[in-house]
């Protein structure tokens, strides 16, 4: 039954225009990340070459090419910004579309007059959405790999590909949070428009408001590469500093930077510690979704909205 629900879900989602448009947007943004990386690379190397010529004319030794000090995957650092913005919106719509027809078109009435358990139904929906998200991110991974190969004029190494795959696995986990938010809001609000608005509200809070409270309030945090907050006696800052680990977007960005090595290298344990809140939130939302479906009244039809 879970496979039946998941299969229907995948076919239905892939045929929806809204979803296809968002998918295309994410792919374009992925390609754009490569272009921006190439542009940045080209500019820095150009400036370096000019500087080398100038230094050579003065008889001074040239410093090493700064770009060669950067990790290869740094060219894709913009992806860690696009995923929480465009990717999360895509994931919200994915979660929303997964349940909204069953809820507001009254298809749920037909489904639950069959011999399927509500838990299996919700698990099937989550599995279907998760599989679609995997396909989306695999497409994005392919575009990223091609971008890297073009910019670096060589295929990424196995280690680079491994780290890129790890970044996309992390992104999948991050986006699953938003898929589940999209689903839960449908179950709570029961209305097509209100559900999407509520999900967008959650996205705004998670992506913009919460990071502002937890770290953006500290001006010193804006000064790279200072990561740890300057100690302060103010109680509010102490409180917001404690809340920081729960800001999933902050954790996602930090873990992404570690995986792509655009920031200082961190241990695997440290990265896993950053991933833990994402995993925890996904599990909590999945359990909430299953609980909501279990108690949900699917007897209402399309005329009830």
């Amino acid at each position, binding site marked *: 039954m879970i496979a*039946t629900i998941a299969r229907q879900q995948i076919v239905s989602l892939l045929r929806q225009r809204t979803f296809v448009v968002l998918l295309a947007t994410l792919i374009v943004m992925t390609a754009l990340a490569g272009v921006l990386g190439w542009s940045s690379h080209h500019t820095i190397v150009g400036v370096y070459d000019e500087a080398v010529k100038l230094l050579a004319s003065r008889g001074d030794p040239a410093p090493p090419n700064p770009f060669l000090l950067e990790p290869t995957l740094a060219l894709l650092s913009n992806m860690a910004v696009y995923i929480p913005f465009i990717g999360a919106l895509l994931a919200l719509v994915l979660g929303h579309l997964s349940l909204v027809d069953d809820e507001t078109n009254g298809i749920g009435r*037909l*489904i639950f*007059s069959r*011999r399927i358990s509500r838990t299996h139904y919700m698990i099937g929906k989550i599995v279907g959405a998760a599989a679609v998200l995997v396909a989306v991110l695999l497409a994005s991974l392919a575009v990223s790999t091609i971008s890297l190969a073009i910019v670096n004029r060589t295929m990424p190494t196995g280690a680079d590909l491994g780290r890129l795959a790890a970044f996309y696995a992390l992104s999948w986990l991050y986006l699953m949070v938003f898929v589940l938010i999209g689903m839960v809001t449908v179950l709570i609000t029961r209305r097509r428009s209100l559900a999407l608005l509520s999900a967008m509200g959650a996205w705004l809070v998670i992506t913009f408001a919460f990071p502002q409270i937890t770290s953006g309030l500290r001006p010193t945090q804006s000064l790279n590469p200072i990561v740890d907050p300057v100690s302060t006696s103010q109680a509010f800052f102490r409180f917001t500093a404690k809340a920081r680990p729960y800001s999933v977007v902050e954790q996602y960005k930090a873990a992404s930077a570690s995986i792509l090595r655009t920031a200082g290298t961190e241990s695997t344990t440290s990265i896993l510690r950053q991933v833990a809140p994402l995993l925890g939130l996904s599990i909590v939302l999945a359990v909430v979704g299953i609980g909501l479906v279990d108690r949900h009244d699917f007897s209402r*039809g*399309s*005329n009830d909205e």
Partner: protein
Amino acid sequence: MGIDVMTETTQSQSPAIELDALCHSYGDTEVLRNIDLRIDHGEIFGFLGHNGAGKTTAVNILTTLIAPTAGTARVCGFDVATERHEVTSRIGYLPADVRMYPHLTARENVEFFAKLSGIAKPSAAVDETFEYLSCSDLADKRVGSFSTGMRQRVGIAQAIVHRPQVLFLDEPTSGLDPVGVRQLRETIIRLNADLGMTVFMNTHLLSEVAKVCTTIGVLDHGELIYKDTIAATTERFPDETSLEDIYVRMERSAP
């Protein structure tokens, strides 16, 4: 046509539908009050009542979508609240204003519901059902482009694809043109005659009830005020010329 009604067992000697002191409330609002009703296998039962009388709530309970707040409801001898899987294996359901996944074809939709019903060869069952309903031409078109009448035909296909013993139809003629109404009527009669399906139909269309149903029940403000066969009803009200007149008289004389 090789279509067969499903052969799952029923509880021995049990009626198709049996309600015993059935009650349902939404908060403080009582929607169904102490309904006692028995419908035998093979009947086509017309459930009549004004808007808000509680007809759809009764169908929602019988299709296991909601649980009764008091009393019991049994389908083929199985309790809808405690033996949900046994009940859902034996019923088909066509809600009012049926919708399905608009981006899937009629075949994909019906096959999906066939799989949810756990039947062994869903694809073959779908083909057989479309053929039986003479709507194979719709099979490979996306449901999103369908008219109300076309949706209704596919809706019936999903409701009978697993060969249920009892078919629930909630306002099945809603939104249909006269041709669609006639086709639906003929389909219901054929399903009953060919497959022996018991049909429980909520409707306002009294002219259709007179042509299709063998038995009627009248619900008024959540109470069952009348239940008898069409023939007995006509005999009981010899002064009235139509079922509509009889129904209006019942409604007016209801407490």
